[in-house]
């Protein structure tokens, strides 16, 4: 048994570790990497895992539950309450619209109406796991499209509950389903069920606020890190269990728990504790999806399945796109939103299994629709990739502000700022205050819209893309200010620009000295460490508070910056003493230690005699004394 467990763990972990980095490397999302590795290790390619892949998925669905907990944590109750109308608006219209279209289609195909309704409802669900994970990875959660997607998904999570309740009514046979979803409440009357449901959610709210937080405080005091992790997990598991018990969606329950705890001081700790579990379980879930695709069925009726997949995606996309239009999403956002949610989600697996047991659909269709669901999940990362490459750049660069005579302004824009977050925008404001209009590249389309209205010349999209850089005028640019939040993307941008446009001078933002090392190695001369100037400035004020004269402290600060810059270039040589160099925590500590030791030996002052009348006296008198002797 333990041997079996180890070999399984080996297969899954190895599959993930090999496939996901490759997928990331060639620019795909990690979701696709997991899915592919699932297919590879699955029964139809390498056969390392058999059909237990589906069993794994049930465990792994817990990753979705954890994800909703984390989402809840980032959402304060007030914010959630403000969103209630949007959630209903987006969510309800999506479910009704999509189900209706699918139902009509199936009716035309001559399906039984019960099957048409249940399959319609099932295929309407989108995948919380894929969409939210992808949005987060791309840093788009806070955009209009990201929020709209979240509304739809959250509403679907809630809608699963009544759907599960309605499905048995459609059953032609009287088989009582033995699923976990039929809880102890099944026998109770409807009004009692309602009371219990409300009571369950209410109790989560109450315990969250009045029991869990004090409990966490106590556990935090023990100082045992693993106890805190254990209690975080316990919290999520307990909530999920309670929800299953009363027949509610565990995802919904943990989401509420997350919202309740969003205001507590433990928010970040809970987040960092749950995060890795969530990531791994979600990965496992995606791999399970990949492994569960029945290629046998596929090979028997490839045309039929492909048609269903395409039709379903097309219908979902159309409905979503119309909703996006109604709610006035901008085109680029709307494409992201509609394509992102166009797949059939993991709830479909649950609902399909349920309808199968209710004998609403046949064994054959069950297999086919499961395959359709899994395949449609695979298409999303690809569709989003196509959107990034072909659709969004079209909108991003074509939607220029059309009022101004573009040509004249173009010539002045010989500064490009990539990344207009807190760092880049400060740079841009200083330049603007001095009459320099920079061209801005940013991948947050809300921000882009605002900046355009303010008269900035902004290009939306991935700044590392050559075509975007070209349309932003990199060929005639003099300066590139690389101020993107993510150091990886920033470095990529710098590498691209140095390679293709060596005439452009680069001023690069670095978060810290380690980023700066990398930039130095790439040959960047002008590096600005966020953590240098501000901290030195603070230290100067601290020295002043401690009784130093401000000017003396300021001069010490100036000297420190100079000294630290020099120390950087010295250390960069010694950095290559190790053959296999990777920045790791231990190495960082070693470097810190070296720095601190050098600081001890360093005394700025002995060489600095300016305005020092004691030194003056000593020099003048000392020499005289010597002469007297």
């Amino acid at each position, binding site marked *: 048994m333990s041997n079996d467990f180890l070999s399984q763990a080996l297969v899954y972990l190895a599959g993930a570790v090999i496939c996901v980095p490759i997928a990331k490397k060639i620019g795909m999302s990690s979701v696709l990497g997991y899915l592919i590795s699932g297919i590879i290790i699955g029964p139809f390619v390498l056969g390392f895992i058999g059909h237990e892949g589906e069993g794994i998925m049930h465990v792994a669905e817990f990753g979705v539950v954890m994800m909703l907990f984390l989402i809840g944590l980032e959402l304060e109750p007030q914010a959630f309450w403000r969103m209630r109308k949007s959630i209903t608006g987006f969510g309800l219209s999506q479910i009704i619209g999509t189900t209706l279209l699918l139902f009509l289609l199936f009716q035309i195909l001559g399906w039984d109406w019960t099957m048409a309704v249940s399959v319609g409802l099932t295929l309407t669900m989108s995948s919380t796991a894929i969409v939210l994970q992808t949005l987060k990875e791309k840093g788009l959660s806070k955009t209009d499209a990201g929020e709209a997607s979240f509304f739809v998904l959250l509403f679907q999570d809630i809608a699963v509950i009544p759907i599960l309740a309605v499905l048995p009514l459609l059953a032609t046979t009287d088989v009582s389903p033995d699923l976990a979803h039929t809880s102890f409440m099944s026998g109770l009357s409807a009004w009692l069920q309602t009371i219990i449901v409300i009571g369950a959610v209410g109790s989560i709210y109450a315990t969250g606020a009045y029991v869990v937080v004090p409990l966490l405080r106590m556990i935090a005091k023990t100082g045992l890190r693993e106890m805190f992790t254990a209690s975080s997990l316990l919290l999520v598991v307990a909530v999920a269990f309670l929800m299953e018990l009363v027949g509610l969606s565990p995802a919904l329950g943990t989401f509420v728990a997350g919202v309740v705890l969003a205001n507590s001081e433990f928010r970040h700790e809970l987040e960092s504790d749950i995060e890795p579990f969530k990531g791994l379980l979600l990965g496992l879930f995606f791999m399970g999806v990949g492994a569960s695709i029945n290629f046998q069925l596929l090979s028997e009726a490839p045309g039929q399945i492909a048609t269903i997949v395409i039709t379903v995606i097309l219908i979902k996309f159309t409905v979503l796109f119309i909703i996006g239009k109604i709610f006035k999403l901008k085109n680029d956002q709307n494409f992201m939103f509609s394509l992102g949610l166009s797949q059939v989600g993991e709830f479909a697996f649950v609902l399909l299994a349920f309808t199968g047991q209710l004998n609403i659909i046949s064994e054959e269709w069950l297999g086919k629709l499961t395959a359709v669901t899994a395949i449609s999940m695979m298409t999303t990362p690809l569709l989003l990739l196509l959107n990034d490459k072909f659709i969004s750049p079209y909108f991003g660069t074509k939607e220029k502000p059309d009022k101004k005579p573009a040509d004249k302004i173009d010539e002045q824009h010989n500064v490009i700022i990539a990344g207009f977050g807190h760092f880049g925008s400060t740079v841009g404001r200083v330049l603007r205050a001095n009459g320099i209009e920079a061209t801005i590249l940013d991948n947050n389309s809300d921000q882009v819209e605002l900046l355009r209205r303010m008269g900035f010349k902004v290009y939306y999209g991935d700044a590392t893309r050559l075509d975007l850089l070209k349309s932003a005028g990199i060929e005639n640019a003099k300066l590139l200010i690389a101020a993107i939040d993510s150091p990886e993307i920033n470095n990529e941008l710098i590498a691209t620009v140095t390679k293709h446009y060596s005439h452009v001078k680069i001023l690069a933002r670095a978060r810290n000295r380690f980023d700066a090392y990398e930039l130095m190695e790439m040959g960047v001369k002008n590096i600005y460490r966020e953590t240098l100037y501000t901290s030195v400035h603070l230290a100067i004020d601290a020295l002043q508070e401690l009784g130093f004269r401000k000017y003396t402290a300021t*001069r010490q600060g*100036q*000297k420190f910056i*100079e000294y630290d810059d020099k120390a950087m270039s010295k250390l960069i040589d010694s950095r290559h003493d190790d053959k296999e160099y990777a920045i790791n925590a231990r190495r960082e500590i070693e470097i810190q230690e070296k720095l601190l030791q050098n600081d001890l030996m360093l005394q700025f002052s002995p*060489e*600095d*005699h*300016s*305005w020092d009348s004691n*030194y*003056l006296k000593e*020099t*003048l008198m000392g*020499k*005289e004394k010597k002469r007297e002797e």
Partner: protein
Amino acid sequence: MSNRILILFAHPLFEKSRIHKTLTDNIPEGVTFHDLYEEYPEFNIDVEREKQLLLSHDLIIWQHPIYWYSCPAILKQWIDMVLEVGWAYGPGGLALKGKSILQVISTGGAKTTYQAEGFHHNTIHEFLTPFIRTAQLCNMKYLPPFVAHGSHRIHEDELEEVGKNYNWVLNYFKHQTPDFEILEKYDYLNDWLTENRKA
């Protein structure tokens, strides 16, 4: 061959100065131009570097406008920090011995205002006393200053003339050590120049 002349230039608003633009435009090749406000915008002067620069040149020029009868703040900062006791002056302070120093200055007022009976009640020479003494204390030869008066209302052609003169002086001293004996008889270097350029 390394440069003999080092120009230490100090102007806090160079981009708006007609006169110093003209002057710097007329600096010939082979002269080291060192723009203090550009090098040290935060006044953190690199003393070691400045010392090396001084040591490697023979004629040091302080080029700056006159503000409140003195030099711009950064040049005073430079004097305070670089001319150290035990190096530039005082016991063992012989690093600059024998070098020449020339002040190239501009004033808003005309030459006539810088006279005992003029608006400013004192001559340029009198106002420059601190600089003269500084040079002497550092065992340097203080040459008569090159002055561009009346910068407020100077004409284009006059401006051009000043530029040409500056260019001539720099070219002259690029290869020749100033003859201090002769020069010190003049109030302004401009006077010596007029005589010699014609000759």
